[in-house]
Structures are given as C-alpha cells and as structure tokens.
C-alpha cells in the first residue's frame, strides 16, 4: 500500500480529520459539559479512554454536542451550493429548531435562530448583536478554513458570511476568522510552524477586531509558562466575577479558542493529548475539545485518532460522508474555476 506523503494525498484525510476531530472532542466533552476544572483533572486520562453516557441518560455513548450538528449541516449546505451561502446554511439549520432535534441549548445561536424562524430565511439581520460573544457556532468556521484553504483571499469574506448568520460581535467574528486561518494553514503546510500560525491568525483577526490579535500573540509566551498560569491568562474574561481557575473556561468564543489553540500547540501531533488537555480545562470543555480536536485533526489527518473513538461516534458514517462530500465539491469547484 502506497503511503501518503504529499500534501495533496494527505488532503482528504485532513479534511475528514478536522471534522471528525471536532466530533470526537465534542462527544468526549458532552457528557461532562459544565463540570469544574478540579473535577475534570481528577478524572485524569480516563476521560479520553472511551465515550460515556450523558448524565441525563437521554443520549447514547458517543453522542456529540449541538455544535457538531450545526457543523455537519453547514458542511452539507456548502457542498450543495458550491459556495458559502448564508441562506442555504440557515435553511439547513432551521429544521433542527423547528423539529426540536437540537441536542442541547446554545443560548446565543438560539436567539439568532428563533429570529430566522420567525422572519423566514430571506430576512436580513437576524444575528445576535454586539456583546453576545458566545461560541455556539464557532466550530462552523473550520469549514471555511477547509473550503478556502487554497484561496486565502476569500477566507475572510466567507467567514464573515458564515459567522454573520448568528453573530455580529466583532470578537466572535475575529475569532472565527483566526480559527479558519489556522485550519487553512494546517491544510497547506506539512509541519506546524509556530510563528506562521500565530502571525497568520493574528493578522486575519486584526482586520475585524483590534484586541483579539494581541490576545493571540500572548500564546507563544504562554507555551513556556506553567500550565496553570497560562490557563488563567488565556481563559480570563472581562467578567471579574467569573472564577476561571475553579469553573473552567467560560462559554465565550475568545477564551475557548485561545485555550484550545494553546493545548494544540503544546502537542501538535498528539490528538489524544490535545483533547485530554482541552477537556481538563473544565467549564465549556465540550466546545474547547471540539476546537482542539479540529485543530489537531487538520494537521495530522484522521488516521492518528484511536479507532475506538472514530467508530464509537454517534452518526460517524454521516460525519464522514459530510466531510468527503465537502472535500469533493471543494476540489470540483477549484477545478472548474481554474479551467
């Protein structure tokens, strides 16, 4: 069997790795979502050894969170349209709310989607306004990184379209662009070069928000500081009353992205290590682990994830089909444009 060595040959695996990595991180974190940092650290490596049932008892082992539902449907919408189109993404998402199939509440996305439901998919401006910095739809921006990895000129515009469905906040938009940029970087480079990753993400985010790039630039220094200090620095929020050391990461997009990026950069080629360290941050760990899983999956591909985690996912075949369809449509669109 021929080994995959070139980036071109690795590309399908990295596409699938991103989406499956996100789903694995989400499924491992979903049962424990909201647990404290102390509790998660006490679980140790047990947390990544296999899926467990959600404490509510309503969901099977391997059930991922609502953010992966959105991710999978958005991937289908992009593959169907051949471009990032807000209306078609909304049309794919609306049934989740109309038929109450969403597995958990995402407060920020709920607000936006209830407006879309009331006003119809052709309405304009249903997104949450500035100040709503939740991370409900953050994961979807990895699709833009995958879709536009070879067309960086379109990346920011497409990310703005996708994020604009649910959020108007400049921090969320800047974080989404930064995440998409890192994913695109991983798909176009053999190795992770720290300076390139950080500078690329900061530069892209700077086009939307002046503060996010400064926070991203803190990460290289944090790699050399003790994990606890780094975590407190990266997970801090504007809300002084939120105790990150105890409660873990808040549900805002910026701390989740920074913590996930930090966890990934500490072990960029070890998927289990990355997801475990994301889960041990507590709080909104489901989203943190999903972002961490997507980052590591986009840099190493799907093969390095434990087989048990890959096959144990609920709807694993649908996730693989979505990722494959997105990859093929992306290749088809690029071929059409270049010809």
């Amino acid at each position, binding site marked *: 069997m021929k080994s995959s060595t070139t980036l071109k040959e690795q590309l399908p695996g990295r596409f699938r790795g991103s989406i499956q990595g996100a789903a694995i991180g989400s499924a491992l974190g979903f049962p424990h979502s909201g647990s404290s940092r102390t509790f998660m650290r006490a679980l140790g490596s047990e947390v990544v050894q296999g899926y467990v049932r959600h404490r509510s008892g309503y969901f099977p082992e391997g059930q991922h969170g609502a953010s992966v539902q959105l991710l999978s449907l958005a991937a289908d919408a992009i593959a169907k349209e051949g471009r990032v189109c807000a209306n078609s993404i909304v049309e794919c998402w609306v049934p989740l709310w109309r038929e109450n199939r969403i597995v958990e509440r995402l407060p920020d996305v709920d607000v936006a989607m209830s*407006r879309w439901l009331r*006003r119809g998919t*052709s*309405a*304009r*401006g249903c*997104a949450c*306004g*500035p*100040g709503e910095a939740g991370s409900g739809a953050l994961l979807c921006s990895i699709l833009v990184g995958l879709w536009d990895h070879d067309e960086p000129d379109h990346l920011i515009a497409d990310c*703005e379209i996708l994020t*604009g469905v649910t959020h*108007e906040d*400049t921090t969320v938009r800047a974080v989404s662009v930064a995440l998409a940029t890192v994913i695109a970087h991983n798909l176009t480079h053999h190795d992770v070069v720290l300076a390139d990753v950080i500078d690329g993400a900061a530069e892209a985010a700077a086009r939307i928000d*002046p503060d996010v790039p400064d926070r991203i630039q803190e990460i290289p220094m944090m790699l050399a500081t003790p994990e606890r200090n780094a975590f407190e620095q990266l997970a801090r929020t504007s809300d002084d009353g939120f105790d990150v050391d105890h409660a873990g990461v808040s549900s805002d997009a910026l701390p989740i992205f920074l913590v996930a990026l930090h966890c990934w950069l500490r072990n960029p080629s070890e998927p289990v290590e990355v997801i475990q360290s994301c889960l041990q941050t507590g709080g909104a760990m489901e989203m943190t682990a999903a972002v961490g899983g997507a980052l590591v999956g986009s840099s190493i591909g799907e093969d390095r994830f434990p087989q048990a985690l890959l096959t144990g996912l609920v709807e694993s075949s649908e996730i693989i089909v979505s990722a494959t369809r997105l990859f093929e449509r992306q290749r088809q669109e690029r071929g059409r444009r270049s010809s």
Partner: protein
Amino acid sequence: MSLLLGIDLQGDTITLQGVDRRGNRIAYIDEKVSVPFHRFWQVHPDERVRSVRALLLHALHEGLIRPGAVAAIGISCEPGLVLVDSEMEPVPPRSLNWNEIDSEKANPDEVLRKSLEQYPSVARTLSAVFDLQDWLRYRWTGAVATTRSFAWSSGLTRDTSPGEHWDARALEAIGLGSGQMPPVIPGPHRIGTLQEELVRETGLARGTWFCGGTEPRAARLWLAAEPREGVGIVLLEEQGATLWRVAGPPSASTPLKDAIPSPQGDHWYHREALEVSDPRNGDTPVSDVIYDAIRIDPQQQWNIDSSEMMVSADFGSPSRAPALLAGIGLGWYRDLRPLWRKRCPVQTLQQWTEYRSASQQVSGQETREKT
C-alpha cells in the same frame, strides 16, 4: 451639586463632560474608537452603544462623575444611519452590504436611498429610521425620537418647514411611510428617562432625563455666539476655515450641506464661504466674526494682532453645548442670554492665550505638589 452630562461622538473620539449649573466643566474624559464616527456604515450601532456605556462606567468607577449628581444627559453625534426592524433591533450594516461601501465619506441620506432601493423588502419591515444618537437614546431610554439635524440632513422634510416635518411624498418615493419616521424633537427637549437596567448598572439616578441632541458642528456654532441675525462664526477645522452666518430657514434650493438647523430650531446657520482666511496660517482674521475650533495645536504661533481676533468660550476645547442643551431641557436656563454673555462669553484671542497659559501653570504647579 447637580451636573449635566454631555456626550459627544465626533471624529474618532467619544467625549464625556460633566458641566455644572454655572457652565463650568467639572469632569472630562475621552476615549478613541477604532473606526471614526463618520464611517457609520462599518460598525454595528450596538457596538457604539457599548463603547459609550463602557466609557461612562469607567468614568463612574474612577470617580470622575458622581452618579447621583447627574441631572440630565445631552448628546451631540456625527450624522449616522440606523435602520430599525420590526422587532426594534437594528438591521446589521453587514446584512445590507454596507461593508462594501468604499468611499471615505458617504452621507446617510445617500446610503438610505441606495439601501432601500436595493432591498425594498427591508423598507417594508422597518419600524424606524434613526440617527446613531437616536439609537443610543433609544437603547438608554426606550424613547423614539430624532433631531432636526437628522431630519434636515436626510433631505426628507417639507420645503415649507425644513427640518421639522417629514415630507410624505419624499418618503413614499423611497418606499417609506410617515409612520416609519420618528417624531422630530428640538435639541434641548426632554425625550425620555433612563431604563431600569442602566440605572442598576451605572447607579445613575432613576428618572434622569435624556434630552434631544444635535450634531457636533451645530452644537459648536450654537454655543460660539449669541444667535443674532447676521452673526458670523468661522469654524477652524482640519480641512480649513469655514464661515457660517446666522439667518432664517433655508430655501428649497439650498443644498443640505450649506445649512445647519440650530439645536433649538429657532434659527439656522448658513455656510457663506468654504475657505476663508485662516489665522492659523498667519492670514489676517476676518473682521466681525467669532472664531471657534475644537482643537488648537499647543505649538500654534499666532502671527496676528491677537486683540483683534474674537474667539468663542470653548475655543480649542470640546464644546460644552451638549450638556448645556440638556440643562435648557431641564429648565435651568429660562433666559438664555446670560449663557452667551456671562457664562460662555466671547473673548479676544489675547485673553484666551493668557487664560490658557495661566491654567497650564496652575496645573503644572498642582502636579509638582502632588509629586
């Protein structure tokens, strides 16, 4: 001691000033924003509301302004445009593709016409068309109103009563109805009281009035000189020196940019000349006019007869007009003449220079003593 809080959104700066009953500035704080206010199409209006609220909270936490002392709030803001949907939420600029506007200066009236032409469905679902300051006031008080400055600059008011009453035909031509436009209220009038949420967050007194507002240039012109027919005021701005004269309402053919309604609505300022002699460059000052400027370079050398040039009370500093207009709304200044003659009198450039050097010496001495 009660004070009036003036909010000024101009250029790339948010300014908050506390002014007492006598017109003395007793608190001042400003902060830069990343996108200037004239580029209103690039920023979600709620982002501006958040910025102003954050600066106010900072001023209160720092003890610059005592929350219980604020009696009323006034505002001046560069013209902007906020389209408010049927749920009284702003239509995000990006959803109307305003982020694709690439000109340096786009007027709100042009943007409004083009947007409604491009998206007729948006026009049908709009609840209101606001200026940025109207949106800020709405968020803080829940009251729907706009100013004469916005009404005039929209070009949608009747020729017979410019800047006062909406013209139903002009509105119909762009797909709007009269019911979608907010009522036009003179600048100093009381519009609404602060919402409970803001009261809880800031500690400002329950029942604090938020008054109508105006645009920064109108505010400066209004406070610069007592508005008698024919009085000339030269505004020294970055772009140059412009001469404005107090007169009656404009005719139907007057371009929108050549006239500004006074905040009170009883007179107008007409632009007489775009480029007049600029004393900052050593030109001889125009006689019988009053000079006003928001900013004067501290290193500025005046190679002119400084006893001949008359300058306004707020020459070289942010205008106190937004705060004082709120005071008028509260009924603090029933007779306005003392405001221009006693509290904010016109002075010669020489007096202004002497006063400024004296105040700099005092502040330098205070700093040394503190050190």
